[in-house]
């Protein structure tokens, strides 16, 4: 593969963003951007047009946009967008909703590095 796949990380927790970035970069992906809230995530998606978005489903609302509506927005902008939802265990309903909106897959915290890479590669079709 010629160019590195570009990934956008949307997560309100710095710890998570760092963890995701380190894991993905080490495996040869390019982190094209990071957002710390849903609204910013949608803006960055428009701007960067990444190959893949990882998105924390539970984020504080910013101007009526939270994690779940961010998924909806992003899919509206690009029906082919590849969104992986990241969630904690107890959020089944939210994740289901995100999947209905068109998220490609999900991963539950806590996850291992292999699992993260597995889902990212699968969604990217590698």
């Amino acid at each position, binding site marked *: 593969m010629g160019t590195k796949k570009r990934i956008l990380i949307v997560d309100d927790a710095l710890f998570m963003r760092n963890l995701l970035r380190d894991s993905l970069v080490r495996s040869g992906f390019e982190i094209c951007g990071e957002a710390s809230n849903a609204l910013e995530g949608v803006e960055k998606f428009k701007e960067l047009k990444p190959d893949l978005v990882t998105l924390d489903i539970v984020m504080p609302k910013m101007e009526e946009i939270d994690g779940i509506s961010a998924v909806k927005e992003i899919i509206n902008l690009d029906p082919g967008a590849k969104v992986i939802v990241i969630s904690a265990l107890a959020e089944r309903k939210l994740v*289901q909703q995100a999947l209905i909106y068109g998220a490609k897959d999900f991963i539950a915290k806590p996850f291992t590095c292999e699992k993260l890479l597995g889902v990212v590669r699968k969604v990217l079709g590698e």
Partner: protein
Amino acid sequence: MDKSYRDLFFGEAQEYLREINRALVKLEKEPADLESMNIIFRLTHTLKGMAATMGYKELAEFAHQLENAFDKFRSGKIDFNLEVMDVIFESIDAFAALVDDFRENRPFSIDTALYVSKIEKIIARENKGKVIEVKKIEEDIKIDIGLIDKFKEEGCEVLRVAVVLAKDCFMKGVRAFLVLERSRKMGTVVKSFPGEAELKEEEFDYSFEFILATRESREAVQKELFKIIEIEKVDISIFDLTGLDKFEKKVKTNVPYLKKIQSMRIPVERLDKIMNLMGELAIAKSRLVQTMQAKDYVALEETGYIFERLVPGLQDELLKLRLLPISYILDNFPRVVRDLSRSEGKEIDLKIIGSEIELDRVILDDIGDPLIHIIRNSVDHGIELPDERIKSGKPRHGKISIKVSREKGHIILEIADDGKGIDFDKVVKRALSKNLIKLEETINIDSAKIFDILAAPGFSTKEEVTELSGRGVGLDVVKNTIESLGGRVELESELGKGTKFVLTLPLTLAIIKAMLVSVGEQIYAIPLMNIRETVKINKNDIKLVKDLEVIRIRDEVIPVIRLSKELNIKSFKDASAAISVVIVEGRIKNIGFVVDNVLSEQDIVVKPLSSFIKKVKGITGATILGDGGVALILDVASIR
């Protein structure tokens, strides 16, 4: 392995399975009864050990898995609801089928894995403390057959997709949901198993199935689903309804309720008695030789008396060896009633009285099916549905009772239900419409006549023939079987109150009292049970009525049959004036048999005929007479 061990194994296995079934029925009635579960567990364990010793690997393995499962049932807090019980019953039936396969040395007729997985599923589910309505995908799909056909017409392929999720998968409910969502992009998810609500609530282990109607190829579907993480396995097959039919049939047909008695256990005490008698007989024999050599006729006569005492005693003891308690058959019946009433939606209590009474093994083997038939009739036609019963002021639970009693040389079996009884008018109307009886016969109709009608081939009062009671064959078979054993069937029924069948059976078939008669050079034996009287008449007493020869005895007109003609033998006495007639009791009509001479009445030992002459009309068997000659035993039923 020695053949005797083999026989022992199968005999015991059969016994244990019967006990397990009995315990299961009890367990179902009293789920708190841990003792029943313990019995089941213990017997399964014993069966395992026996099978392993015999080298029946598959059997031992299956028993082992069942034992494990039962152990969990024993320790876990399992709710023994109907569904759980069904699975256990099915597994035991499967085990019995496997035992049979081993006995017959034939390929295995069941897939043990299927049953093991069913049990495991139940345990996994029940142990979570949740009872979830799980329907077999096969059952659900039936409703949707029309839908599936529609998809097929539209050019879709209908696939059965089985998915196994990774064991370390979090939120498996959502994972399953994602699989279904993704599948919906490719077609229509007709049905999932477990249902989607259960899937969402994570009420499943790591695997689930669904039916997908799609235009995509199987490979494409598989590839697409594998794009989802935490999926371990995706199996896709063409959804095939004919395959389903086979599956269901297999489950249904491998459950014969009654098995032929293959071997039996004999109390040592009985064998000892026989040995003693044999010993005395040996002594008497040497005494006989001595007295004959000494030409001591007084002592010889005494010796004769000794034989007269010993031989019948030995005969009696040997006969008893063939006797088995009727519980051998009746013990299966709680299970039969349970299964039948469940499938009919009825609630029935079965009461058995006198199951310890003993009957000849040969008779036991033959009466099982007729009894089941009568029971089926009661469940199907007799006992009403619970609501109906309450409406007519009866207790919700129907009652069927089987009462066994002994009466002289006979065994009486009464099978009674407290159901709706037989509507004589309805039976008569139907019989008329089917030309089974004539109008003039409908006067003075009684239960005996009704029974004859019901037992006529091709009669059934229920509008639609149900799976249960067969297709109108049945009562005629019951009647024929019992009569061929030298027994009788009677019917009593009261509309609204219930129906009772009374079966009268001989205690044994091996030795019967018979009347010896001669026709030409031949001697025949007529079972005394059938004989009403013997009369001597004058040749002129035989009158012709419409080509039929009849005699008149005490104002009764009795048709006569000349045995010489019927059996095609030359009679010595065709022309003589005095004629001997043996009058045989029929349930409908009495018949007189014209014979040359009535010789004597005696006990005869019934020997079955070899297969090549078995089907000769009029003859049921043979016996060896005191002088070494052979007498054929007349089958009165088939001649009249």
